[in-house]
């Protein structure tokens, strides 16, 4: 027995009060005269002074009430050893059963469940136990129950999941159960294959002192050969006006022996398209490329499946191939611009007049038609801005840059300003006005509407740009006549790296935007609502943005090609152009697959953009063809979440929609789990207990914090009730006694 606030015990001195009262109340105030106290004084002093206490029962009642009151305030509690004696040494056992997919390797799962059953059967009737199943998350069945049948049922009903091993969540859950437990002995049995990947998450867990942790390792010491399909990439191209996809799968062999003739199959809609033999060296990776297939108009569920080995979960890789991952760009150039559309990834230049540039990222020689820098031009220091002639292709570098890229696939259509049709505008996602002003007439109106309806417009200001006065609201500002920069030209002095276009260049070694030299630009007097994304070192805007209606307009105040600058000759030019077009097209890359354990946010999932999330008619079926609940948000927030627990394809369908659009979501296991290397169980045990595993010597030394013990026992409450009972009895009794004394005949 101990006390939480022992200082209150000092009030025990107050017990003298009732005793004193009992004595004082007998002391008459009147003085009795006596002839001589000669004989009285001979009697020893202590007995002389001692007052007689009457009503012993009353005194005891009062003292007991006071004592209980003081004890209640002192907050007594039983120490753990006392509790242990009372409870007869009952245990609180938490069984942690790993059900991550790596447990499917060999007979690990069967051994793990057998071990768990053994623990449950060994429980005494007084023991309480909880079974926690965990992979990346943790689920507890009935907590702290003595019902062995329900515990066994929980173990028998468990199945391997698709998640990875994370020891943190189950250990934290166990910690909570142990801390809430009143049992004197705490024990944790951790049954797992102890993969290294899950250990780090347990760093912040610390079990109550005295907890005995017994790890049960179900992984064998032998080598664990394992083949896994670690990923797949899709190359798209156009063939006969149809989009084709070529799948390349990557496989890894984590065994110490070379695997030969492994069959790897490409499945489309669960039908095998092609099967190829693969040889993978020991502890190495290999790729296999399948024959291209035509992409259909709907999402195609594609799987790459290797022959089943000891761990089947990582032998298959699912993903979806979506059509239409193409951004159509209409480039309107000067009169000399070739008018034929350029097929993307066309290895042959469509125009022989173009330079034989292989890639914009490589050094591109200046076009022949461009006059070289004239040293004699004395008004210009080093190099001079060039003026494109009528025959110059002002969109050469732009076209080349757009010709590179698979995700998305850019489809540029280059038109001279006089040849643009309304159909061109209708199919375009982004329009680039390359060194031309806004066309007049119906085309100009169509472009304006295009922007206002959500299209993206990129205006590159060159020598020939003339903007109609009634359309100046489209631009972020009013342009001025060209301004030259002296010496070696200007550079970009300010770049808004927080903007989506420049975000990728923000981190170190991600492209140096200060290397391009700008010799001429057109100053821009900005409108207040415009935003400047980049400025030259003299402060003039280099790139400005304005939102018009639902669309965006970007103005690049110098040329896109290399007439007024050498930006197009720099390696950073290609990603810059891609980012500008993607930004204007509001392009979001499709998600080919997700990982088991993730939560799918349909509002943020591009492929599910057509689904009505608020209608309540959404039906989701998991790979096992079972219906899955969708957690819907409110009408205002319009959110829907799906827990992705299984590996395979989830199907989402709006049953009320006329077309019954089907959304496929591919879910793969986390391949970190396929690394079967084990950690030392002792390391994990030491992490959560600070002691060696299975150390039972501390089992009886469990120390719960006194506050916690006292809170659980709440003995003060009973003491208070007892004190009140005594006081009530005392009141009744003292009233009767005083009545009797006042009227002795009563």
């Amino acid at each position, binding site marked *: 027995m101990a006390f939480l606030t022992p200082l209150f015990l000092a009030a025990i001195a107050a017990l003298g009060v009732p005793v004193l009262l009992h004595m004082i109340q007998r*002391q008459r105030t009147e003085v009795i005269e006596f002839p*001589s106290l*000669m004989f009285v004084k001979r*009697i020893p002093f202590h007995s002389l002074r001692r007052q007689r206490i009457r009503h012993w029962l009353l005194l005891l009642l009062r003292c007991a009430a006071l004592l209980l009151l003081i004890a209640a305030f002192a907050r007594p509690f039983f120490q753990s050893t006392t509790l242990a004696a009372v409870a007869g040494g009952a245990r609180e056992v938490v069984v942690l059963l790993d059900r991550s997919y790596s447990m499917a390797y060999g007979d690990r799962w069967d051994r793990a469940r057998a071990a768990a059953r053994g623990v449950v059967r060994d429980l005494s009737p007084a023991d309480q136990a909880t079974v926690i199943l965990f992979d990346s998350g943790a689920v507890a069945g009935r907590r702290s129950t003595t019902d062995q049948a329900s515990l066994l049922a929980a173990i028998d009903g468990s199945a391997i999941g698709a998640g990875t091993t994370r020891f943190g969540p189950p250990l934290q859950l166990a910690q909570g159960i142990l801390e809430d437990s009143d049992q004197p002995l705490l024990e944790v049995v951790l049954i797992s294959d102890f993969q290294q990947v899950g250990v780090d998450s347990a760093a912040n867990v610390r079990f109550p002192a005295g907890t005995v942790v017994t790890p049960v390792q179900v992984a064998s010491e032998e080598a664990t050969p394992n083949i896994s399909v670690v990923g797949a990439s899709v190359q798209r191209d156009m063939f006969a006006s149809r989009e084709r996809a070529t799948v390349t799968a990557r496989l890894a062999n984590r065994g110490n022996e070379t695997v030969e003739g492994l069959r790897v199959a490409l499945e489309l809609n669960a039908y095998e398209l092609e099967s190829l033999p693969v040889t993978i060296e020991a502890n190495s990776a290999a790729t296999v490329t399948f024959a291209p297939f035509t992409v259909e108009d709907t999402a195609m569920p594609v799987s790459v499946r290797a022959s089943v080995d000891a761990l089947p979960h990582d032998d298959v890789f699912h993903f979806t191939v979506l059509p239409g991952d193409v951004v159509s760009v209409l480039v309107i150039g000067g009169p000399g611009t070739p008018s034929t559309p350029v097929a993307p990834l066309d290895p042959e230049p469509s125009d022989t007049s173009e330079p034989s540039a292989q890639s914009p990222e490589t050094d591109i020689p200046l076009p022949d038609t461009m006059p070289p820098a004239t040293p004699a031009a004395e008004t210009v220091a080093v190099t001079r801005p060039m003026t494109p002639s009528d025959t110059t292709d002002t969109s050469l570098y732009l076209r080349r840059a757009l010709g590179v890229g698979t995700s998305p696939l850019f489809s540029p259509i280059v038109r001279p300003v006089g040849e643009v049709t309304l159909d061109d505008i209708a199919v375009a996602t982004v329009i680039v006005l390359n060194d031309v002003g806004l066309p007049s007439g119906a085309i100009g109106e169509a472009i304006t509407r295009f922007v206002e309806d959500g299209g993206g417009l990129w205006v590159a200001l060159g020598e020939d740009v003339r903007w109609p006065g009634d359309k100046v609201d489209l631009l972020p500002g009013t342009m001025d006549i060209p301004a030259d920069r002296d010496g070696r030209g200007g550079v970009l002095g300010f770049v808004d790296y927080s903007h989506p276009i420049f975000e990728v260049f923000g981190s170190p070694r991600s492209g140096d935007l200060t290397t391009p030299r700008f010799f001429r630009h057109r100053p821009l007097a900005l409108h207040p609502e415009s935003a400047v994304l980049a400025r030259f070192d003299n402060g003039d805007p280099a790139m400005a943005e304005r939102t018009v209606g639902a669309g965006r307009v970007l103005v690049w105040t110098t040329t896109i090609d290399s007439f007024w600058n050498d930006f197009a000759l720099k390696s950073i030019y290609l990603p810059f152009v891609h980012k500008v077009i993607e930004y204007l097209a509001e392009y979001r890359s499709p998600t080919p697959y997700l990982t088991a354990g993730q939560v799918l946010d349909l509002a943020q999932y591009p492929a599910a953009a057509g689904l009505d999330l608020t209608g309540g008619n959404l039906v989701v079926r998991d790979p096992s063809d079972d219906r899955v609940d969708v957690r819907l948000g409110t009408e205002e927030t319009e959110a829907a979440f799906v827990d992705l627990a299984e590996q395979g394809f989830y199907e989402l369908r709006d049953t009320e929609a006329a077309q019954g659009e089907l959304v496929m979501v591919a879910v793969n296991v986390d391949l970190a789990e396929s690394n079967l290397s084990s950690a030392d169980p002792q390391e994990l045990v030491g992490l959560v207990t600070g002691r060696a595993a299975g150390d039972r010597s501390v089992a009886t030394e469990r120390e719960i914090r006194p506050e916690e013990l006292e809170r659980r026992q709440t003995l003060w409450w009973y003491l208070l009730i007892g004190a009140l009972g005594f006081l009530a009895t005392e009141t009744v009794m003292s009233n009767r006694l005083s009545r009797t004394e006042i009227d002795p005949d009563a």
Partner: protein
Amino acid sequence: MTTSPPSSPGARFIDPKVLARVGSLELAARFVVEGFINGLHKAPYLGISIDFAEHRGYMPGDDIRRVDWRLFARTDRFYVKQFEADTNTNFSVLFDVSKSMNFGSRGITKLDYGRFLAACLSYLSTKQRDRVGIITFDSDIVERVPPSAKHFEVSLHTLDRMTASRPGALGPPLYKATEFFKRRSILAVISDFYEEPEAVLDAVKPLRFAGNDVILFHILDPAEVDFPYDDSSSFQDLETGRKVPVVPDKLRDQYREIVQEHIDAVSQLCSQNRIDYAFMNTRVPLDHALFKYLAMRHKLTKVR
């Protein structure tokens, strides 16, 4: 309160409280003594005898008036008559009027009880033609009436107006009183004797050694003997004024023992020194007490 102890059938005893209501001391004394004498008229012991004791041969120097001439006539020899005692002896009361005597728990104080006792004894002595006197004392002699055949009234008057107002002590006043008794006297010392037995004896011994016949009347109130108090109270010493908190229940038995030991010790010491001792409880009727005392004295006389 009953006034009839069963040990004295036929005797009519008077409650001291009734006696206290009698205004005159003489009347009260007569009331007690005559009733007492009448009641015991046939009894063979009637006071101190003055009868003839024996003859002895005449010795030169003897008073010739004591020669028995009738015997000389018959025998022709001189004989002197000797008597048992002198008939006209002195009787004095030494009355303790210390403040402790002013205590009474039953309507009569020890002072009053002693007052009646002294009056009775004086009346009895007067009836025997003795000379009576009285000395009152506390820590010193307060008043003194020398023994005389005519001093009965004065003695009663002294008894009547004496008050107990000062602390007392036995030794000094009694020592001083020794000087007053040149002739052998009967001295009745009436007190509550709140002193150690040895001190009491030391105080009365000089009187005894001077040839006086000393009788100690030890008067105590029933409350002093029985200590009948219940509630814890503060007890105040009447003489010193000192207060002591006392739990009577706790010390009653011890107190009774101590008091009884005190009485026994005084009684024994008196017996050893041939001093008469009579314990008087004011609860007991005065005539009954007198009767008891005189009976005892008569026995002693016979023994002697």
